[in-house]
Every structure is written in C-alpha cells, then in structure tokens.
C-alpha cells in the first residue's frame, strides 16, 4: 500500500500521528479517527489496482455536522471526491476544495502508511 503522493514533500513540516491499522480501513469507503480532538475522515480508494489513502476534516461546513466520512466516494474528471451525505456537495480528497462553492473547503491532511500502520500529519 502506498500513501498519496503529495505527502512526501510535506513530511518535514507536520507532526505524524498513528491513527489506526490498514485493516481498520474499508476499501472504497470511509472511516473516522479522532486525532488531538480533531475528527479526521479517512478514505481508502482502490484506483487502477493501487490503493491510496486520503484524509480530510470530518466536519461538513455546509451541513454543520461531523459526517463526511459517511459520504459516497467517486471521481470528477478523474480526481477523487467524496459527496457529503447531507446535501451532496463534493469535496476533492486531494485538496479539500468544494466543487459547488468557490469559497468553501475542508482541511486536507497528509497521510502515510508504513507497513500496517496508518499515520495522519497535523
């Protein structure tokens, strides 16, 4: 399993937290981890046979509830997204940007996977 590519460069700047093991993740779906009282949504995607893990804040800024990890995953023009389960806005997993509203976004966190261990950088 490899982590999302954009992560490596960031490695210096962030503090890594061990959040769970790979078998806690659900392929093509989401789970949620509590990191320093922050709710982080973790998504595990199988893209062309390769598995990638993404992390974004779990708080839906439009629905105002902690639900993003329960959204459906998919892609828009090839880029992976999650659709909020409340009102179906799409958030890009790589950047946290909202597709429907220019001024709305959620924090996207770097993820790395070492062996069975999954780390999130905050």
């Amino acid at each position, binding site marked *: 399993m490899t982590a999302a590519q954009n992560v490596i460069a960031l490695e210096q700047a962030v503090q890594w937290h061990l959040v*769970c093991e790979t078998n806690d993740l*659900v392929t093509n779906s989401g789970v*949620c981890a*509590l990191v320093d009282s922050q709710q982080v949504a973790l998504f595990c995607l199988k893209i062309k046979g390769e598995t990638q893990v993404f992390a974004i804040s779990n708080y839906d800024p439009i629905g105002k*509830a*902690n639900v993003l990890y*329960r959204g459906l995953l998919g892609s828009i023009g090839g880029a992976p997204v999650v*659709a909020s389960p409340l009102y179906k806005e799409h958030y890009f997993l790589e950047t946290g940007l909202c597709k429907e509203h220019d001024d709305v976004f959620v924090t996207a966190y770097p993820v790395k996977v070492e062996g069975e261990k999954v780390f999130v950088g905050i």
Partner: protein
Amino acid sequence: MTSLDSKTQIVVVGNGMVGHHFVEQLHQSDANVEITVLCGESRLAYDRVYLSSFFSGASADDLALTTPAQYAEWGVNVVTNALVTDIDRDNNKVTTSEGQVFSYDKLVLATGSYPFVPPIPGNDQEHCLVYRTIDDLLAIEASAAVSKVGVVVGGGLLGLEAANALKQAGLDTHVVEFAPQLMAVQLDQAGGNVLKDKIEALGVTVHTQKATQTIEAGDTCRYKMVFADGTALETDMILFSAGIRPSDQLGRKSALTLGERGGIIIDNHCVTSDPNIYAVGECALWDNKIFGLVAPGYTMARTAVSHITGGDAEFAGADMSTKLKLMGVEVGSIGDAHERTEGALSYTYLNQPEGVYKKLVVDSEQKLVLGAVLVGDTSDYDTLLQYALNSIELPEHPESLILPSSDAAPALGADALPDTASICSCLNVTKGDIVSAIEGGCCSVGDVKGETKASTGCGGCAALLKNVVDSELEKRGVEVSKAICEHFNHTRQELFHIVKVNGIRTFDELLEQHGEGLGCEICKPAVGSILASVYNDYILKASHLPLQDTNDIYLGNMQKDGTYSVVPRVPGGEITPEKLILLGEVAKEYNLYTKITGGQRIDLFGARVEQLPDIWEKLVAGGFETGHAYAKALRTVKSCVGSTWCRYGVQDSVGTAIDLENRYKGLRAPHKIKFAVSGCTRECAEAQSKDIGVIATEQGWNLYVCGNGGMKPRHADLFATDLDTETLIKYIDRVLMFYVKTADRLQRTSVWMDNLEGGLAYLQDVVVNDVLGINEELEAQMDAVVDAYQCEWKTTIKDPESRKRFRQFVNSSASDTNIQFVSERGQVRPATEAEKVAGKDQFIPVSMV
C-alpha cells in the same frame, strides 16, 4: 457637460428588475461610465416574476438577482433605502428623502409601478394589503397567520396569483372582480368562464360583477365588504390587486411630459422629453402604452444602453403574449385574443367536462394567426406563438392546430422555424442566435443557456429551447446524451439489461467493462439498486457496501445533525401492545425522540451511529424487522381496519395489507414504493394516492396503480377490477417487476407511468394480455427476490465485522461532541447552532451506551 477625462456619470433611480438589467447591460458594454444606483427598497433587485414562490419556501436570497458584492465587483455605487424625491433638471442633480444629492450626466428612471388601490372608504385599515414587494409578502404572511378568510380584489393575472398565495396559506379564499369575467385583458368571455369553473373547483370562490362600496367592521369576520348590488362578503383580510399605475411622480414633479393617464413619455430610444433623462420599464409610456411585463422592460433597458453608448437600437413595441399556470390551471393568451382586427375570424374548441377551451383567431384570408386563447391546456402555445410571431402561413385546416391530436395535426417542429424566430422573448434570443452558439461549440442546453442567456428570465421558453437545441445537435450528428453520469454512457434501463444479460454481480466488474473513472453518488447507488433487484444479495456485502448511500450503509436515515432515525417495520400498521411497549422502552433507554409517522408506524429519532446496532439488537429480539425507511424499496402498506371491525368493510384489508407488505418487503426499486389497502369504497387508507392501491369490493379487489401523494400528487389509475387475491398478487408482481426493469433512476411509478409510451392501456396489455411474452420471467424474478429476503438489521447485528462499521471513531470510543440535544415538549431535539454557541449547560446529557 462632461469633460474629456472624467467618466460619464450615470445615475439610475430604482433597482427593480428592469433597473438591474440596465445596470448589468451597461456594465457589460465596457463603456467609460460611472454608475450610481439609487434603490428605493431596502434590498437590491430581486425577481418579482417569481415573487409567489416566496410562499412555497423560496427565501429573499433565492429571489435576489444580484448582491452588493457583485455590484462592488462591477464598480457600481449603490445606495439602498434611497428614495429619490426631486430632480433638479437645470443643474443635473437628484435629491433623496435622506437629503443626499447626486449629480448626473445621464439620468435613468426605472421606478416601475405601484399597485392601484381603488378609492373605497375603509381601504386603509390594518389588514388591507397589496402584492408587489417582498415587504408586502411579509405583511401578507403576518396577516394570514391571524386570519381565516381572505379576499383578493381583482381577478387579473396578479390577482389570481395572490389568491393562490392566500389559498396556500390555508385561508378560505375569495376573488372579487368588477368585470363579468376573470383575466379580462388576456382572455375572452368563454375562456374566462372555463377558468372560473376550474378555479372554483380548486376551492376558491369567484365573485364577478361586484363593485365594492365600503369596507366596514364585520360580524363574523374582521371586515365586511359591501357591494353596489346590496350583497356583502365577510373577510379577515383584503388584498388589492386591481391593476398597476406607473410610478411617475418624479417625472410629474420635474415637469417631464407625461401621458394623459400617467406614465413618462419616451421615444424609440427611451429618451424622455429631457434629452438627458431616460425612462425604462413599467414607469415608461411608449406609443401610449405601458408594458406590464418584464420582457419589454428588458428590451427598453438594452435600447437605453445602446443610445447612451452611441448605438442605434430602437424600441419597437413588444409582444404581450403570455403563458402561465395559475393554481395549476394552464392559461395562454397570444396577440389579438379579442378579435379586434378587422375581418378577423375565429375557431373555437370547448371541452367542458375536462375544462379545456381553445380559440384560434386568424385573418380574413385564413392565412395567418392573429391571436389565440388557451385555458386548461397550453400544449399548443409554443406552436401557435411561432405561427403568430413569424407570420408562418397556416395549414389547410387551421382548426387542426387546436383540436385534440387528430392525425392530421401538422406539428411545427423546431426545424420549421425560421432563423429569425424568437425563442426567448425575455432575453431576446432568436433561433439564429442558438444556431450560432451551437456552431461556436455549445453542445448542451446548459452551454447554450450560458452563452445566450436564453431561458434565464421567466423560464417559459425552456421546453422550446430544449427542442431547438436537441434538433440542431441531432442535425449535426451529435447524439443527445441520455447517459446516467460521466462514468457510464448508458441509461439506467440499459445498465439493467447489461447486468442481467452478462450476469454481472459487482459494481467493479461493470465499471471495468462498461464505464470509466471511479463512479459517483449517482451511478453507484443506481447500480447497487439494479444488482439488488436482480440478485437481492445482502446489501452490505463488501463489494456492495461502497455503492450505498449513507442511509443504506447505516440502515437508517441521516438527520440534519448526523444522527439517525430508527423505523421498524409495522406491517399494515397493525401492532401488538407488547411491541408498542418495547418501542417505548427502547426509546426511553436511548433517549430517542418518538413520533408516529405518516406511514402508520413509529419513528425513533436521534440515535448516534454507534448506538444503532445495540438498539436494533433489542428491537430484533422483540420480533421487529427493518422498515427500510432508508431504502429505495417497499416502504409501507397502509391499511384501514376493514371488515374485521368496521361495519362497512367488505374484505379483510388488514390481513391483505400484512400479506402484501411481507411479500414485497426488501424489494429494491428505482425509487421507493408505497401501497395501501382499503376495506371498502370509502377508502380510509387513501389507496388511490399510492404506487399500488387496493380497494375491496363485494367480489374481490380493485387494483389501482401509479398514484403518488408526494411532491406532485397523482391519482392512481384503475388497473383491474374484482380480482381474486391470487390474481391480485400475480398482477402486482408483474407491474412492479416491469417497473423495476424499465424505470429511470429515482423515477416514482407515477412519473414512470406518465412517460410510458402507450400509458395505462400498454401496461394492461403487458401485464394482463402478456403482449411482450415476459410475464413468466417477471413472476420468476419476483419469486427469486421474495425467497432471497433477509432482514438487513438481523444480518448486521449478528456479524462482528459489520458491527465495526458503526463505530464513530476507529481509534476511540468517544462520542461526537457536536451532537447536542435540548428538550422540547418533553422530548429531545437537535440543538440549533445558536443554542450550541450559547452554552452547554442547557443540553440534555447524551446517554452513554
């Protein structure tokens, strides 16, 4: 005079629909101008045409046409609450009621009009209102809340819209009209009569030929209106909608030339009698006419912009044809509806039982359409309007244009229209404009809308626009896409077929062979539902789980705060006291809000995701099953008490409802399915508003199909009569399976039926006469689904791996602290954002289970 280096100062008085359009057009012209907008209301321009949608839930923001931020971005200065009181024409200055002074090089008056209130003694009391602005609506809403009866004075277009608003607010509504008919401007007497019948059938009382003389204190209501003929009408509130008058006070005060009956006179360039002052919209009088519609106002705005920027556009009058829906009644009026042209001849069609009236007015040689009146059915409007506007020569039998579809009716396809044909009159877009947009690369209705702005005004041209775009695209060999989303180039029906024929069992398989990308929230649940309809596997099998909407994954409906509802199945609405007690006990233990639903069962709200398995464990142990309230599947089979107890019942409706609910529970479908069974013709279970309705007869059962009670109610169609129970079930099996196979994604049976070619007769042919020879297959498929049924909750709670899915956090047993409840009427409800900010002490502690 403007000096060379300074910008021309443009001051616009009034920020209504037309004033705003002027600003937008002038901004887009890139002219070297500085624009100042003086807005008499407290808000910037909003869509008055859709004002009534405020009563069906639209907010002021939804109606807004612009925002302060957008004006700022355009560099437009805007002042709200700035009512202009004086124009100093000698010094080119205007003054507002607040005393602010603004200088102009060019002044544009876009002050619109105001509602005319007839001078009746007593017309100035608290609950005597008008209907023009958002503030008026707020006042109406407040008054309606403390009224039972409401009267609209004036039976024109706006009056009927206002009546609809009062009706929706739940008032006993009356319309009082001075003339002998409704909508006297647009319709002839016969059309007005048909409209009156239809509107009265909707529960609004219409009083024509009534002249109100005084408004006095009432005996049973707040007021009493006394009419000239000595009769009277009691009411709690009165809405005046007796016509509009141009807001021309500023013109009058500053001695601009006005029309005899008001209105600021303009020439073909929209210039008033002062060369530095323009007037546009409903305050302007052109050729002795006021135009009370938005499209001509927009044309005036564009004309004025053209003149200011050195162009040569001229205003040449406007077509006043209208098509609208008043309280669900379609009404259309084109051109010379009253046959005023010399030598005009007419054809009429009247279908009293169905409430349809159509009149076609033609010239003396029967070559051209001069006008038309349509009530109850406006499907011919687009065609007739195109004939009228483009002087298209009439076919040999002009009456065929308004007669119900006889084979002879020559349809005027999008192809037959000339390039000059006006498609969108609000934004002045012709067929030629659309063709060039398509040649310039637009390949969808959306693209064309963006490029030409067509259909962004009143929206009346949407269907015609789509026809033109589709036909032009098809001409160019572009296949008009019916694809479900960007990941599959197929319709739902095609995907169903592919899955079935190729024996595909997972989404990944289907995506790999027939799609691209990763899928999305549209195709995944659709395919999930197809797979479930075909195989009925456990819905949370690892390969299916990522396809399900959150509601299906967590087997509950997500509420606004991220908690879930718990809805156990109560077949037929019959429940034992033991089960009722258990529901109460579980609700108490987990502190859940409890409510009887509209579907004869009980909903427990506010369960946190991690509580769901424990709650369901207790419910399942007590004999409950999932109610599929979250699923596109069978929901409820409502029943009435039937022959067992009721003195009128002729069959056991409860028993049959329970049997039907148990047979079809778990059936996945394109959308949810609801049934009801009534024990006699009194129909206490409201079966005729359901997807499948069953009504007992002395001989057996009458079967109704494709009804709907939700967003767009549809009366179910009587499908077959006096069936025995076995045939009843056979027919339902076939109807449902045929629906599951052929309907579009998220298409209820009602919409499916409306789109089914051949309609009810065809469905009867398929199901009763087996014309497609598929009945055996349909029944076998249903049997397979019925046999494969399992309660998803029962399966889930037994499997530790599945239960893991219900943890809030993978790495902690904490709860989501953002979920907070307060108490209301003795139960919990989600705390509002404001309450959350205000402090935690008032919260109900969440039980930690």
